[in-house]
C-alpha cells in the first residue's frame, strides 16, 4: 500500500496532508517563502515579483496563484502554510485574513466564527 493510499483512508475534508509528495511539489514555492525570513529578500520580491519567482523556479501554476493571492491554490500547489505565512506577511494579510480568504468569509466573519467556537 502506497502512502497516498494510506492517506486516502483519512480523507479529512478541507485538509491537505503536507507529506513528501506535496513537499516535493511545493519545494520551490516554499523555498522562496522561506527566504522571506530576511527583510532584504522581502524587499527584492516586492521590487520584482516575477524575477524573484523565476529565481526560485516556480511553475507557471505556482506563479499564477501567488499573483492572485489565491491561498487555497498555493496549498494545492504544494505550499505549506508555515512558509506561506511569510508571503502573507508581505501582502500584509493576518492569519484571520488568510482564514477568511480560504473559507470564503470576510475577516470579520472569520473572527466571529473563531469566537463562536467557544460555544461547542
Amino acid at each position, binding site marked *: 500500500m502506497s502512502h497516498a493510499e494510506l*492517506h486516502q*483512508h*483519512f480523507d*479529512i*475534508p*478541507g*485538509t*491537505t*496532508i*503536507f*507529506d*513528501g509528495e506535496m*513537499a516535493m511539489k511545493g*519545494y520551490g514555492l*516554499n*523555498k522562496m*517563502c*522561506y527566504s*522571506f*525570513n*530576511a*527583510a532584504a529578500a*522581502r524587499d527584492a520580491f516586492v521590487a520584482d515579483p516575477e524575477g524573484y519567482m523565476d529565481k526560485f523556479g516556480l511553475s507557471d501554476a505556482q506563479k499564477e496563484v501567488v499573483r492572485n493571492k489565491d*491561498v*487555497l491554490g498555493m*496549498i494545492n500547489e504544494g505550499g*505549506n*502554510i*508555515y*512558509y*506561506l*505565512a*511569510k*508571503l*502573507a*506577511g*508581505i501582502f500584509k494579510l493576518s*492569519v*484571520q485574513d*488568510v*482564514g477568511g480568504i*480560504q*473559507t470564503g468569509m470576510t475577516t470579520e466573519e*472569520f473572527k466571529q*466564527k*473563531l*469566537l463562536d*467556537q*467557544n460555544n*461547542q
Partner: protein
Amino acid sequence: MAKVIGGITTSHIPAVGNAIAKELFEDPYWKPFFDAYPPVHEWLAEQKPDIVVNIYNDHGLGFFLDKMPTFAIGAAHEYHNEDEGWGIPAIPPMPGDAKLSWHIIEGMVEDEFDITSCQELAVDHGFTVPMQLFWPGLLDNPNLPRAVPISANTVQHPIPTLKRALDFGKSLGKALRSYPEDVKIVVLGTGGLSHQLDGERAGHINKKFDMMCMDKIVTDPEALTKISRMELVKEAGSQGTELIMWMMMRGALGDNVEVLAKNYHIPISNTGAGMLLLESKD
C-alpha cells in the same frame, strides 16, 4: 544530581508576542489568556529553576525542507531569534547550556534515539513566546534560566507518533536526571492545542478533544499514544499536531505529577489556547 522539578505547557501563538510587546494584559480579548500566567510566575519565583528545556516545533526559521530533522537538540552557548517574515518583535539572545545539551545528546543516542545536534539554531516564536510568557523581562529577569531548545518536526509528514513523543520524553527525563550537577530543571512543552490555519477547514477548533487531552496527559498519557497521527490531524486540526510537544514534556516528568495550574481559552488567534503547570512527584 540534577532534578526535574516539573513541566509547563503553553500555546505559543505569534500574536501573543505582539500582545506582550503592546502590554495588552488587561485588554478584554487577552485578559482570559494572560490571567492564567501569574500562578506560574509565582511558582517559578519560588522554585528558581537553573535550566529550562524548551520543547517546541520550528515553523520555518531554524529549519527548511532541504533538511528536516525529526528531533533536533540545540547545543549552543546562546540562541538567537530573527524576524520571521512578519516583523514580530525580536528578543535578545537567550543563554544556553551547551554542556548539558551534550549530556542529553550523549544519553539519548546511547538510549537509541537518533538526534540532530545543532551548534547554531535560530529559535522562532515556538521557543521565544513561552520564554516571554514565563520570564517577563527576559535578560532583565534575575530568574531567567539557561535554555536547551528541542525542536520536533510537525511541518512535514511523516511527523513523529504520539507514542514516540512520549518515549522521547521518558528518555530525555532519564538523561536529565543522570546529569551530575546540582541543577533544577523545568521542561516546557509548547504549542497547541487544536487549530488549523490552512484549507477550507481553517478555523477548526475542537474543545472536547482538547479537554480530553489536558485531562489524560496528566493522569494517563499512555492512553493518548493510541491516537494515530491522521486521527490527531482530524480531531485537533493540521497544526493541532503540536500536542506532540506536550507529550514529549510529559514523558520527562516521570509517572506522578500534580496539577498546580490549568487554563483553557478559545480563541487566541485561530487556536484553542491551553496551559498546564505540573509539578513532578516522583
